[in-house]
């Protein structure tokens, strides 16, 4: 184990800003990408569902 305490872990031997800046931004970037992809998929699915439902309705009526 490299670290004596939690604060030592976060300080990273004086390089805390750089190390956590790297890991933090990476984690944030990957998380944001995941959320954006999920949103794109569900948006598409929602519009398609509505289009199809409208099509079915107009078919039922005719």
């Amino acid at each position, binding site marked *: 184990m490299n670290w004596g305490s939690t604060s030592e872990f976060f300080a990273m031997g004086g390089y805390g800003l*750089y190390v956590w800046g790297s890991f933090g931004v990476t984690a944030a970037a990957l998380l944001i990408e995941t959320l954006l*992809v999920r949103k794109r998929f569900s948006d598409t699915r929602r519009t398609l569902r509505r289009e199809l439902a409208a099509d079915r309705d107009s078919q039922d009526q005719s």
Partner: protein
Amino acid sequence: MSQRFVNWFKFASPASFYPLAGKAWPWFAALAAAFCAAGLWLSFFVAPTDFQQGEGYRIIFIHVPASWMSMFIYCVMAFWAAIGITFNTRLSGMMSSALAPTGALFAFISLWTGALWGKPMWGAWWVWDARLTSELILFFLYVGYIALTAAIDDPRRADKAGAIVALVGVVNVPIIYFSVKWWNTLHQGASVSLTKAPSMATTMLWGMLIMALAFWMYSIAVALYRVRAIILERERHTTWVAELPEMQQ
């Protein structure tokens, strides 16, 4: 033999790839999470402090794998582009455009972490190191690909044009890399390179490999998820989309 050949082309159709991707992506996401946990544990708790660079060197556990991924993804895009041009399959273009944003993201992460590594080590946020410069140019190539495919309205045309850009780019990547490397040595002599960290211990190598695996699995999962969205957008008027279980109700 012929049976297997037919099967491959069956999966190359969007209609059969869509459910396959839907089943596959959670597995890759789970693998990504597992490798990520293992990689982080290795890079923070197992790998020892570097006697020259202190704790700052831990940045390479994401910097190096992200650079690898950004280059690898570009090659995979070029591979799909070549398939698309040769066999004229619809899926290959969709795969390329599903991969591009993730590749660009990894190129960005590589540049960002490179800058954060460079500041304490070299005293500057940016140095014209051969690898960093090539990575920057690779990022430009990704941006060019995304901008071009976004500017073309017809998706089929966008796929074909994107395929040409990807192929021209992949031919140029090694040329650019070697020219930048040569330029670099001519101008400032050999500089400290990121990957040639002074004491490359086995644990460090393992940490980087496992993190690379995590990024790899993540890329596959995200690309599969994104390609599902792209397939739905492109195939919206087909009957198989209308008959999908998630489209009912």
